């Protein structure tokens, strides 16, 4: 791999039960590229958590992935309500997910912490009323 490869995914915010399609497709793409299985696992879980967040909180969004020689970069962008207090949102156990989402097994307050746990770098840029962009990087070496 000498130059970067890019993948674009639309995350549909209408249907919560089918959330995860982008991450599962992403995982397949990475397998085809021959990326190390443990790195694929970490990257796809981080992306899935981000995808779920966009569906729960922001009516969907877009995911752009760039695979270069030394890293996978995932950028998740939504036009949702934004995160007023990022430090609080990063705390394990803190969640603002509604009850119907909790009944599906989400809303444990582990989404953002898992994204941080499974990636090497993570940045959140968020403006209330405008949207949120999460950038994650997973090193390949």
């Amino acid at each position, binding site marked *: 791999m000498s130059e970067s490869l890019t993948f674009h995914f639309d995350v549909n915010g209408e249907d919560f*039960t089918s959330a995860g399609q982008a991450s599962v497709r992403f995982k397949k793409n990475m397998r085809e590229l021959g990326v190390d*299985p443990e790195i694929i696992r970490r990257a796809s879980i981080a992306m899935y958590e981000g995808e779920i967040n966009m569906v729960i909180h922001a009516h969907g969004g877009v995911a752009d992935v760039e695979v270069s020689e030394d890293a996978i970069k995932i950028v998740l962008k939504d036009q949702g309500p934004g995160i007023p207090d990022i430090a609080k949102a990063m705390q394990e156990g803190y969640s603002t997910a509604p009850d119907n989402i909790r009944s599906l*097994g989400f809303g444990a307050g582990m989404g953002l912490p898992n994204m941080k746990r499974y990636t090497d770098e993570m940045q959140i840029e968020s403006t209330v009323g405008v949207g949120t962009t999460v950038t994650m990087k997973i090193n390949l070496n």
Partner: protein
Amino acid sequence: MTVAEFAKKYSLEVLSLPAPEREIKGGYMGDLLSWVMGRAKADQAWITIMSNQNIIAVATLIDFACIILAEDVRLEENLIETAKTKGVNILTTKLPAFEVACEICQEIK
């Protein structure tokens, strides 16, 4: 022990078994999906009572050996079909989660 061998030995009902030869190398029990994704490991059998479509995505991403639905939890037919096409093994049992976990323990000690 493979998923197929485990299902047979402990009389679990098979809902989806596209990869019968997968080896069970441990177990994880939990229903909060993000918690599971933060802690579980590949090749484990995942015991849960959750039965919505998201469990198939979680199992695919974590790369579980199988999902075991405890307490006689059932899965809708269309989800069973999805699991088969995605290569996700799913078993179900009337036993409570704790007792299934005990059975897994006996096999992986």
